[in-house]
């Protein structure tokens, strides 16, 4: 196991080099010059020249890239062109916020999604199943920025239960978490139901029933165990995307996370910020994939990550 993890973590290095070089060339290839957005298009040529020298955009892309990698190796992400703050410092503020929001919405989505999916699958074909299925497809279709606004209108402006926006403690976290969780609940419900329904018709379930096991026991000992793999996959994917920031939810609830940070970076062509966000996001997605792989290993003994036992 240790060997497998070490190998996977070593693979991070070439992957990150690939991602950084790609993002770097892509951002540089974008039309629009950050210097113009910093000083305005009518600034004097000498000022523009000076700014270019300061941020190093007068040198060739290759030299700039080498410089950036050297910076990364020192554990730095450079400074934002606009605020002149260290990108690392900003990331250290925004990332924990994003993590909180992602964990919060997962804490809502996982129990609800799995419960509704199980209920729907066990009662397949009945009215309960139909209601849950309709609700879940609705959940997938509602735009987050609209459901967020309605949730905010109801819970904080009408009932005055929770603050409408801001970043901070638990009470600020609840509404955005619920908003972000809605589509995730819907996806999870659909995946859980679909997987279970497929497993219900498998021969080993019939066998278990034939040997006289109670319905309940069949479900818990045989069926649910086999449904865990696709669920872990979906949860991993959702969690990974939330760690990259939930732009819309963060915008509505004024949550100070990675999503808004990245978007502002992109809009202002603040290259160090874009690069920093993408690198952190990629590392997170890769780490989560790794965790998911390890979970597979424990959930299904047929999946072996290492060794030749086959």
């Amino acid at each position: 196991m240790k060997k497998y993890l070490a190998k996977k973590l070593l693979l991070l290095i070439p992957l990150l080099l690939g991602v950084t070089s790609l993002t770097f060339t892509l951002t540089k290839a974008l039309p629009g010059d950050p210097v113009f957005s910093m000083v305005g298009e009518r600034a004097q040529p000498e000022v523009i020249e000076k700014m270019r020298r300061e941020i190093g955009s007068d040198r060739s892309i290759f030299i700039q890239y080498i410089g950036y990698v050297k910076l990364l190796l020192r554990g730095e992400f450079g400074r934002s062109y606009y605020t002149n703050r260290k990108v690392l410092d900003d990331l250290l503020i925004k990332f924990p916020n994003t993590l909180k929001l992602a964990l919060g919405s997962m804490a809502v989505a996982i129990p609800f999604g799995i419960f509704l999916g199980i209920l729907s699958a066990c009662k397949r074909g009945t009215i309960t199943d139909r209601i849950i299925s309709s609700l879940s497809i609705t959940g997938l279709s509602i735009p987050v920025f609209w459901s967020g606004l309605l949730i905010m209108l109801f819970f904080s402006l009408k009932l005055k239960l929770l603050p409408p926006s801001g970043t901070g403690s638990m009470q600020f976290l609840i509404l955005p978490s619920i908003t972000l969780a809605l589509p995730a609940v819907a996806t999870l419900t659909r995946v859980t139901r679909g997987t279970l329904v497929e497993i219900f018709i498998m021969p080993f379930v019939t066998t278990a029933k034939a040997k006289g096991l109670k319905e309940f026991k069949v479900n818990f000992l045989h069926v649910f165990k086999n449904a865990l793999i696709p669920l872990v996959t979906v949860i991993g994917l959702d969690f990974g995307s939330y760690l990259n920031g939930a732009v819309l939810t963060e915008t509505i609830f004024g949550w100070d996370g990675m999503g808004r940070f990245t978007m502002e970076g992109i809009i202002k062509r603040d290259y160090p910020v874009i690069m920093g966000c993408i690198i952190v996001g990629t590392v997170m997605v890769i780490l989560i994939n790794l965790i998911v792989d390890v979970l597979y290993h424990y959930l299904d003994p047929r999946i072996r990550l290492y060794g030749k036992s086959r």
Partner: protein
Amino acid sequence: MGKAGKISIALLSFISLLCFTAPLICPHNPDTINLDSIKEPPSLHQLLGTDNKGRDILSRVLHGGRISIGIAFVAALLSMGIGLIVGLVSGYAGGKIDIVFMAFIDLILSFPAFLLAIGISVVFPPGIFTVMIAIAVVGWASFARLIRGYILTVKEAAFVESAKAVGCSRMRILFVHLMPQCIPLIFVMMGIKLGGYILTEASLSFLGLGAQPPTATWGAMVSANRAYISSAPWMVFFPGLMIAITSLCFNMMGDALRDRYALKIE
């Protein structure tokens, strides 16, 4: 096709009909500012109320629908076209071409889709075409992957062998014999994807990257009106409701198509 599929298609046709004939049927101009009747709640005279500049919300919603649905459709056609060609070539050619194309497809799919769309939308000046391009650039990859997988399964089929045997060129096999095989599949995929495209378009407009004011789109209306959510909630409610209903109908149609053609695509 089940009942849900039929109802959703009927409802979609109705919504599209209303939106695309909006200039003919709307009693009010969507952009006419009328400061005598601002933030009026829904009434018989103005069914969905008016906004903070006294503009009729119903007219704006219907006119905006033309743009929102239109963008989603054109974006779907664009990603379908790109995906079809890349998938065909990649699947049929195999070898190095396939490896390069697949690497590129995986790369696109592994980026956070919405951030990628934002990144592409800021490259061009904000507007209708920018949104179409942004959605298509992010969206073609899943079409391409589907088509490639399908081509891999049919390229050894008897009809391809016979086409080769009678001396058809590779191009002819690719575009005359294989491409028509993909058409049903790709339209099903398009049906499945449209609901998501409606949401992406709305989200990009919400962030101000879509059609610019005073042009109405559903996402932009929610965004512009959200400051008035507690004093005039209908200003936010109805445009958002239209996004939700349209996207829901497309998703239901997609589900029906998926069931009917027993497709495993995500």
